[in-house]
C-alpha cells in the first residue's frame, strides 16, 4: 500500500505527471472504445467511403479535442494569455511551451486510434473496396458489367453474407489485398509517429536548452501559484465561515428580540465552560429563533474585529473602531461582497 500511496502522491504532486496519467488512460480508453465499437459497413457505393473515412478520422479529432478539454492547464493558458499586464510581464515563450506540451499530450490518443484502425483493416476495406483493381485480381473472362453495377457488386465485398460477385472477383482475394494495404499503411504510420517523437525529444537539447529550462520552470510556477491561491482562498473561506457562524450564535443569545420571549437568565459576562461551548443558547425557544433567523436573515459578510483570533490578517484591517456593534449590522451590507 505504501508504494501505491507513493505513486499516487507522485502523480498528484506535479501537474505534468498527472496529465501524463490522464494521457495514458485516454490512450487505453481509445483502444477499448475501438474494440467495443461495432463496425458496420453499409455496403452501398457512396456510403462506404464516407463511413470508412468518417470512422478513421472523426473519432481521432474528438479524442484530440477531449485531450484539451480534460486538461486543466487549458484555462490556465487562456487566462495567462488574456490577463492584463499589470505589474507582471508576460513571457511568450512560456505560453508557447504550455501550448506545445498540451498539444503533444493530446495527440497520443488520436494516434493510437488511427494506428489501431489501420492495423485492424476494417475501415480501409470498407472505404476502398470499390477501387479494387479488378483487371489484375479478378476474373477477366467474366462478361463485363456496367460501371454502376460493378460498383454495386464491389461495394458488397465487406459484407460476406450478401456478396454476389464471386465470379467477378473472389471475396477472400479482395479482402486480403485491401487488408494488406491497410496494415502496411498502419505500420508506416506507427513508424512515422515514433520517428517524429524521437526527433522532437532528441533534437531539442541541441538547440535552445537554456530557454527551454526557463520556460518549463515558469510554467510550473504559474501552475503551482494558481493551486496555492485556490487553497488559500478555500482556507480563508473556512475560517471566515467559522467566525461568522460563531458571531451569529453569540448575537442570537444577546439579541433583544430573542430576549423578549426568553429574558436572559444570566449576565453576558458570567459562566462556566459549559455555557461558553453552548454559545449562549440554552433552550428550545432560542434555538428555534436561531435556526429561523439563519434562513430568514443571514448575517452580513462582515466580521467584528474584536472577536477575531490574534495573528489573523483581518484584524485591524480598515474597520473603524468607533462604530458601535448594532448600527454596524445595517451598514455592513455595503462591505459584504468583495
Amino acid at each position, binding site marked *: 500500500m505504501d508504494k501505491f500511496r507513493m505513486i499516487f502522491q507522485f502523480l498528484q504532486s506535479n501537474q505534468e505527471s498527472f496529465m501524463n496519467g490522464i494521457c495514458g488512460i485516454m490512450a487505453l480508453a481509445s483502444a477499448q472504445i475501438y474494440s467495443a465499437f*461495432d463496425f458496420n459497413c453499409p455496403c452501398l457505393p457512396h456510403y462506404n467511403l464516407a463511413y470508412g473515412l468518417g470512422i478513421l478520422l*472523426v473519432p481521432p479529432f474528438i479524442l484530440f479535442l477531449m485531450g484539451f*478539454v480534460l486538461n486543466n492547464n487549458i484555462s490556465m493558458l487562456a487566462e495567462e494569455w488574456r490577463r492584463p499586464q499589470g505589474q507582471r510581464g508576460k513571457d511568450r515563450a512560456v505560453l508557447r511551451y504550455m501550448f506545445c506540451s498540451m498539444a503533444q499530450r493530446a495527440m497520443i490518443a488520436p494516434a493510437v486510434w488511427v494506428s489501431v484502425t489501420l492495423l485492424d483493416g476494417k475501415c480501409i476495406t470498407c472505404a476502398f473496396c470499390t477501387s479494387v483493381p479488378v483487371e489484375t485480381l479478378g476474373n477477366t473472362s467474366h462478361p463485363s458489367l456496367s460501371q454502376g453495377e460493378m460498383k454495386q457488386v464491389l461495394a458488397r465485398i465487406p459484407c460476406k453474407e450478401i456478396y454476389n460477385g464471386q465470379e467477378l472477383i473472389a471475396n477472400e482475394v479482395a479482402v486480403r489485398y485491401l487488408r494488406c494495404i491497410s496494415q502496411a499503411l498502419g505500420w508506416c504510420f506507427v513508424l512515422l509517429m515514433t520517428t517524429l517523437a524521437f526527433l522532437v525529444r532528441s533534437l531539442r537539447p541541441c538547440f535552445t536548452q537554456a530557454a527551454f529550462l526557463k520556460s518549463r520552470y515558469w510554467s510550473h510556477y504559474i501552475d503551482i501559484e494558481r493551486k496555492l491561491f485556490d487553497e488559500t482562498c478555500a482556507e480563508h*473561506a473556512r475560517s471566515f465561515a467559522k467566525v461568522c*457562524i460563531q458571531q451569529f450564535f453569540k448575537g442570537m443569545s444577546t439579541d433583544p428580540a430573542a430576549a423578549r420571549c426568553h429574558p436572559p*437568565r444570566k449576565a453576558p459576562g458570567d459562566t462556566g465552560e459549559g455555557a461558553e461551548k453552548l454559545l449562549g443558547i440554552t*433552550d*428550545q425557544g432560542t434555538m428555534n429563533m436561531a435556526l429561523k433567523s439563519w434562513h430568514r436573515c*443571514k448575517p452580513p459578510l462582515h466580521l467584528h474585529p474584536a472577536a477575531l483570533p490574534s495573528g489573523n490578517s483581518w484584524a485591524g484591517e480598515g474597520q473603524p473602531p468607533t462604530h458601535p456593534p448594532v448600527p454596524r449590522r445595517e451598514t455592513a451590507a455595503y462591505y459584504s461582497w468583495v
Partner: protein
Amino acid sequence: TDHFRMIFQYFQSNSESVMNGICGLLALASIKTYTCFDFSCPCLPWYNMAYGFGIMFVPPVALFLCGLILNRQSLVMLEEWRRPQGHRKKDLAVIRYMCSSIVQRAMVAPVVWIIVTLLDGKCLICAFSASMDPKKFVGFANASLVQVQQLLAKVPCKDDELMRNNTSRKAVSRYLRCWSQALGWSILLILIVAAFLARWLRPCFNQATLLQAHHWSNYIDIEQRIFEETCCEHSRLFAHKCILHFFESMRQEIKLHSFSLPREGEGAEGKEDLLWGITDHDQVNKLLKMWYYEKPPLDVSQVTQR
C-alpha cells in the same frame, strides 16, 4: 481497502472533486445500465416508433433528474435563491454560476446514454424500419403496401420466421445502423467542439467576475457545512447537559425518599458518583419510566448557571 480509502479521501478533500466523481459514476452507471438492458423491439407498425423513441429519451430524463438530486450543491443553490435578503445582499452572478455548474454536471450521464444508444443502433433501427422506402431494397419492392409495412416493421426482429434468412432485412438493418452511428459520432463531435470552445474562450470574458462567483459559491457551500457541524456539536452538548440534569434530579429525588443510612464518608461532594445514586432494580425502572412519561424540558439555562 487502503487505496480505496485514499482515493475516497482525495475526492472528499474538495467538494468539486466530489461532484466530478459522482458525475463520472453516473456516466458509468448509464453505460452499464444500457448494456444490461434487454432491448426487445415489438416489431409492430406503430409500436416500434413509440418504443424506440421511448428508450432513447425517457432514461436520459431520469438520469438528468438523478444528477440533480445527487448533487448537494443544488439544494444549497435553491436555498440561496429563495432566502429573504435580510442583512446579506444576494448576488445573482453567484446563483447563475452555481446553476450552470450543476446543470453541466447533470447533463453528462443523459448525453452518454443517448450517444451509446445511437452508436449501438438498435433504437433507431427499431424506430425507423417501418418508415423506410421499400423501393430501395430488392426484397421489399414487390409486395403490396400493407404487407410491406408489416414486413418492414419486422426487420429488427432477427429471429422472426419470415425474416430469418432475408438478405434485404440485413440491408435495411445495415443502412439504418450506418445512419445511426453517423448521427452519434456527429453529436459527439459537436458537443466536444462546444466544450472546447467554452473552456478556451471563457477566460477571455469577465475572468475577474468569474473568480469572484467561484469563490463565493464555494464559501456558501463551506458555510452551510460548518453551520450544520456547529449545530450538531451544539445539540450534542445540549443533550449532554439535559441528561445530566435529569439524572441529577433523579438522584436528589432518591435521596429524599430513601431510608438507607446516610453515608457521609462517601464524599458525595468530592467524588463523582458514576451511578448517580441509582443502585437497584426498582430505581432504574423508575428512571426509565420517568424518561418516557415525563421527558425534561428543553431548557438547560439553570444547569449552566451553576
